């Protein structure tokens, strides 16, 4: 110790990388590794086939779980000059991002450059609308988050005239529910693949695909809300579908293709 106390840095921002996401990905990685470990026991060309099979299947699985917790179903970002904080007239140049997930939103604020006025401007704030986003917004106000973040979060409160929350909450909730259903279908499909007749596995893969698509449809209803203006400084932005959404689409298509192939294969045999 040397009579010197260590420095305890307190975490300023609530969100860096979702611990949950990390866990999920780790679990699946461990699964993959352990499954791949049995590969050497398989002979010949089937080894390749099995490797392919294991990886594809686990990929789909991890995607289905992860998509629930990602915050990039829809995104909007812009670089703008924005008032930064209260009790100051400082205007910063920053990238403001809105990241919509199924359970809530993440709002990011990253200064360009990161350090301005001797302050590190790098915020990533999570607002979940699971219970009442009203409370979370109030907390955010009390914590005194930077203006752009509050500005965006406020759009998702119940009292906001935008009424975004009404649509987003249900879209997200149903998208997540159907996604979990898709996950169940995926589990079933995997069980069915190990049965004598794999036709049903094919159907189940198609069901998985269908539920992924339902989930996307459900999520995309957020675009039905009358456009709500997000205007910070002189610029404004619009949310657009993002990685997770397209990843869902890709996974859905992958599942559909596998399903169709299996079914077709079954009928041709």
């Amino acid at each position: 110790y040397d009579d010197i106390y260590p420095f305890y840095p307190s975490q300023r921002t609530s969100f860096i990388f979702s611990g949950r996401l990390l866990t999920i990905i780790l679990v699946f990685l461990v699964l993959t590794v352990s499954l791949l470990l049995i590969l050497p026991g398989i002979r010949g060309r089937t080894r390749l086939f099995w490797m392919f099979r294991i990886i594809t299947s686990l990929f789909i699985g991890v995607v289905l779980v992860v998509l629930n917790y990602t915050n990039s179903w829809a995104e909007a970002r812009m670089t703008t000059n924005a008032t930064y904080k209260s009790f100051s007239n400082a205007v910063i140049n920053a990238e403001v991002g809105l990241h919509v997930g199924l359970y809530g939103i993440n709002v990011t604020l990253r200064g360009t450059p990161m350090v301005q006025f001797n302050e590190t401007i790098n915020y990533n704030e999570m607002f979940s609308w699971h219970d009442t986003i009203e409370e979370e917004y109030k907390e955010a106000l009390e914590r005194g988050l930077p203006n752009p973040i509050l500005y965006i979060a406020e759009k998702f409160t119940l009292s906001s005239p935008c009424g975004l929350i009404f649509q987003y909450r249900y879209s997200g909730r149903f998208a997540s529910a159907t996604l979990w259903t898709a996950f169940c279908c995926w589990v079933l499909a995997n069980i069915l693949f190990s049965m004598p007749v794999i036709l049903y596995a094919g159907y189940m893969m198609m069901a998985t695909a269908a539920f992924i698509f339902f989930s996307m449809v459900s999520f995309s209803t957020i675009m039905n809300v009358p456009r709500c203006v997000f205007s910070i400084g002189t610029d404004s932005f619009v949310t657009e579908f993002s990685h997770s959404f397209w990843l869902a689409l890709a996974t859905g298509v992958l599942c559909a293709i596998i399903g169709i192939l299996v079914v077709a294969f079954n009928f041709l045999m």
Partner: protein
Amino acid sequence: QHSGSEITWEVPRFDGWYNSLGNPRRGAVGSHLVRLIPAHYWDGVYQPVLEPLQPNPRRLSRLLTEGPSGLPSTRNQTVLSLFFGYHVAFEIFDSRTPGCPPEFMNIQVPEGDPIFDPTATGKVLLPFQRGQRDKESGQSPSNPRIQVNSVTAWIDGSSIYGPSSSWSDSLRSFSGGLLTSGSEWNMPSEEGARNLMWSAPDPSTGDHGAQGLFELGNAWANENVFTAAEGIIWFRYHNYVAVELHKEHPEWSDEKLFQHARKMVVATFQSIALYEWLPGFLRGNKLPPYPGYQKFVDPGISPEFQAAAIRFGVTMAPPGVYMRNQTCHFRKIVNIDGSISPAMRLCHSFWKRQRLNVKTGQDVDDLLMGMASQVAEREDSIVVEDLRDYMYGPLRFTRTDLVAVTIQRGRDFGLQSYNNMRKALDLPPVSTFEEINPDLSRTNPQLLRSVSELHDGDVSRLELFPGGLLESTDGPGPVFSAIILDQFERIRNGDRFWFENKQNGLFTDEEIQVIRSITYHDVLIAVTSAESADVQKNVFFWRDGDPCPQPTQLNASLLQPCTNATKLNYFDGSRAGYSIFIITLLLFPVLSYLVACMVAFLRRHRYRKFQRRKVKAGDRAEEPAVGSTAYEWQGHKNQLQPVSVEVEKRRLQVFDRSGPSHRCLNLGYQDNIDVLLSNDRYHKALLLKVPKEYDLVLFFDDVSKRTEFVRHLRLEVADIGQEIRVKEMSEKELLKEALTKQERAQIVETFIRHAFSKVLEIEKCDAGDLSGVSRKRAREVLQCELTASEFADALCLKPDSLFVDSMFTLADKDGNGYLSFQEFLDVIVIFMKGSPEEKSKLMFSMNDIGGTGYLSKEEFARMLRSFIELSNSALSKKQAEDGIKAMMQAAGFDNKEQISWADFHFLLKDHEKELQFAQLNVKGVEKQEKKRLSQYQRVSFICPANSTNRTDGLELRRRKKVSVKTPNVYVKPKREQYIRNPIRQKVQQFKRFVENYRRHIISFIIVYGITAGVTVERCYYYAVQAGATGMPETSVVGIIVARGSAAAISFLFPYMLLTVCRNLITLCRETFLSRYVPFDAAIDFHRFMAMTAIILSVAHSLGHVVNVFVFSISDLSILSCLFPKVLSNNGAEIPPKWYWWFFQTVPGVTGVLLLFTFAFMYVFASRYFRRISFRGFWITHYLYVVVYILTVIHGSFALLQEPRFHIYLIPPALLFLLDKLISLSRKKVEIPVVRAELLPSGVTHLEFKRPQGFVYRSGQWVRIACLMLGTDEYHPFTLTSAPHEETLSLHIRAVGPWTNRLRELYTEENYLEFGAYPKLYLDGPFGEGHQEWVDFEVSVLVGGGIGVTPFASILKDLVFKSSVKSKFLCKKVYFIWVTRTQRQFEWVSDIIREVEEMDTEELVSVHTYITQVAEKFDLRTTMLYVCERHFQKVWNRSLFTGLRSVTHFGRPPFVSFFSSLQEVHPEVGKIGVFSCGPPGLTKNVEKACQQMNKRDQAHFIHHYENF
């Protein structure tokens, strides 16, 4: 490219946060009000002080504020000043939105109130809802309830731009820094689609909705046109400034323009409000000079200010408002009824959507100019009737009293009394009412006196608002003035963004000076068409000499009268619709019932068609063999049968087209043949009269064929010297003339009855009455003669059997091929009445073909063969021959060439008794016979003890060993001690019941206990704990019922899945669990749980029917508290209609769909329809998938609470899925059938490969689908193979469509054609209750009809196990096989025989009960007994069944059987009874067991299974 220094000051937030340096929350949206003095609540915490502690607000209001209108303001304050002040109020506070949960403090209207209760009902209430408060406050005395402010307390333009950034965004146009304008550039938008604006309905027209309301920063702007106009001024002013700035700085961005304009507008507003308007309003009471920003000052609105002081303005409100143009022309106002008034009436301008007089921007200008010219009402205690009696209220009661409401608001806010307020303000307290306002006590002493009376002279009770009104002179009195000044001073001094605060960097000194100099006049001139001279400089006062004086001080009588309150029940007009909806819901089951009936009808129809097609298909298969083709008609109801007819050698033969002859007429016996021909309808019909048989009616394809046939017939007949007599008639008559097969059958039946009635002296009437029959028919009956086949039929024998042949030949004395009445009589007389000798003689002569008096060896053998033939083919031909030989040997006939009657009779003599009773068994006679015969011949091995004295009882055969034991086995049961006390009997019964159904009872209690638990938890929650949501107050019963039952449903539906996990159940029943859980009762539990759940679903729905009713009569403000996530309160009041709840919410729609689904599931699952159309049941039952999906969706909306159903669902659903997967993993494996046999009586025997790893126990069943019959239709069948066998086998009886088609598939021809039998899918094995026989020392197995199938396997298994000496408990098994005729299940005989062969231990005792020869002791049977006895000596088996088992006739007498078992096995405490068969049978067994169990001896534990 614009640099960061674009906006150089800190832009204030819209929500007031972070304005105060000391406390960022101060003055923000949602902040508390700030009390000047402590709250005064009745309970010290939150309950208001109401009557009788305080006077009735309405009474006080009338007393205090009634008075004439038309008195002008003493200081000539203008109406514009009044409404500007009103607008300022909106700028700094809004606590009008009702709080949640809703709380009411309705004002009781004194009886006989001239306005509200003219008929003196005494029941009128003025609605009043308590305001928003901080949820944390109001729990305990140190933090009594405190209200919250939903706008910023700062004067920061929240009434112009809205109290939040998104509000402001929604008002902005985002170009040029402007606010969005509507139809005109100088009018705000009226889109209304957004949920910003408070949109209460128009009390006079009921208009509601957001259309036509201005969108402004002040949520309440549309309350009346005048406030809206104030808002419009500021809206215009912002755009005016923005445009000016834009002109000045064309390069500025929208944002910069907007923020600059906003800064300017807010500063101007601040300046005018505090430095121009406020001093005027407060009689020149000025704020102290601006001391600079004071960071510790809280601008919080004080309740005293909000609920009392600032409301002083109500006294200045005029009854109407003038409009004028720039040239002082005061406009006439068009009223809603088309009449004209000089001014716009206040009471008619609330919440107007269609503003008749203020449509355009110019109209607003005119209104503003009018307001500037009009002098407000006097600052006294009088309030105009527009606010006192005709203030807008909710649609439920559209008028209210603003003064009363204000008083009530003070109580809601917990304000202290007037006197306490004075003390707090360092004013001397008053001790009498007169002291309040000495001037007033001079001018109007009466007023003070009556107010005093109302307070019982206690001035300390006088509340703040009335006190403040009373003290007013030319404006707010000292108390109100102090409160108001304090409020505005704090707002100003605490505001970091105050325009005079030089530290905030908003304005330079010069700019501040400029702003200070801007007056409201300047603003008006800037934003209206008025020129500077058109409006006076100080617009808040109208002084003499100012432009455009008002025509006259307005008073109410000049204006259109106010309309009285109207009442609206939100449910009006919904009653009929709602009733129809509920009736429709109730009709769901009826509809489903109708559909089920239709399905049943269609199914029967199609099945009949299928059977007919089957027949036809056979017909078409082959070409007509010989002769001419025609169609035979067999009665109106029957179809035409295609036949071919051949006439040849005296015989006319009718062939089925497929070949076999089905009728043969002998033409030789007749003299002439009558032929009738039709002479109409294409001349196709021909009737051939056949005297003693039914007539042959043929339809030919055309006349030529018919003529050809007749010609041919004539030729043939001519050969034998007969003639044909042809008659012609119409086809109709011809058919009428024809004697059909059915009619003939009736005649024969009557014939036989008559014959018996002669012999048995039965009363004629029983024999069939002839009186109703026509003479002709009666004669026919008497002339009737029986054909050989009719004779055989009467004896229930095959027509081509040897026995019938010999008998018929014997009886047909005249040899005409028919039996006449007399001939028939002669035979039956002997059988019915004759002595044993006579009978044996008859038998003898029957077989003595040559009439030689001796039976040759062949003839005797033939006789025996005929008997054996009668029984069944249990013996192979060789066996039979050997048997006969052996028998003859045994009888000592083997060395005789010929057998005399004496020998023959000797043979029978042992059985004299049987012979004595042996009779011919004739159809239709059983009933009369039974009674008589049964007393001697009740057949049972449990005959009374004395019957053993008789020759071996009536057993057909007894094993030697058994016969040794017999005497001590079948002793007559001793009379047990009979319990006479009925109560003890009941107790005994109950004890036994509990003993038998322990496991059931416990499981039942557990399941229903959990159900009750979850139900009670929710009921308790909603009844007691959910108070904070306001839900229970709204609809207490409905919500408790609905939520409680929903919880039960949430448990029952998911966990019901466990009862149908067939594989898991099969697995579990092998484990120790089966000692605690009655797995075999799973389906019973399933039914129970389903029924309970469905009933609860109905209860739940009814609960919601009540709730929806309550919701649709509740104000929106209440609903928005209950459903904040779905409904938000925008003042619209009108709740969603009932159909919104049912058809536009997720729970509603899915609920209705669920009810619909249940209606179908329920009706089709009823026993009746399940029997009729199993397919229908199964298909509708698969709706369970829909049920689960819908129920998950149903709760997903989280209207009332977060969904739980899926949490309940997940565990059982996983198990169910697992179970399904187990099934699936083997169901889709194709299994080849190795052998298929079509056994008699519609039984198909399938033998198929045993799949790998298929392990089962005897008595288990499987479900199979036949690939050719659809891969997803599975039917359950019991395995009849034993577990140790190589292959699996099933015996399938054809009872319905599927089983019939299956039988068709597995024919020899199909096998040859395809080279293999169709394959199967197999699912199983599944366990049923019959596996437990090993657990009992003594078991009774009862199989009825096809219900023997499980026992086939069990018996085989049992014997196998006993033979390999595996250790098991079982000591004795009684197998009782109940069947209609022994022929019905010949295959069972095979199995029993197999069992008997293996059963060296005498473990199994088999008893066959043949029910359809019930108690009939006929000659045939007698003969068989006789033969059998001899047969037995050699073969040791029954000739009758080919078995060693005991055969009985009639239904088994279970009770006596069981009670004898107790005697036989006295040491055994538990006897297992397993029955399987038709429900009637198992029910009888159950009853017998129950009866036995009432006695306190061995238990009979019954397991049953119905097919």
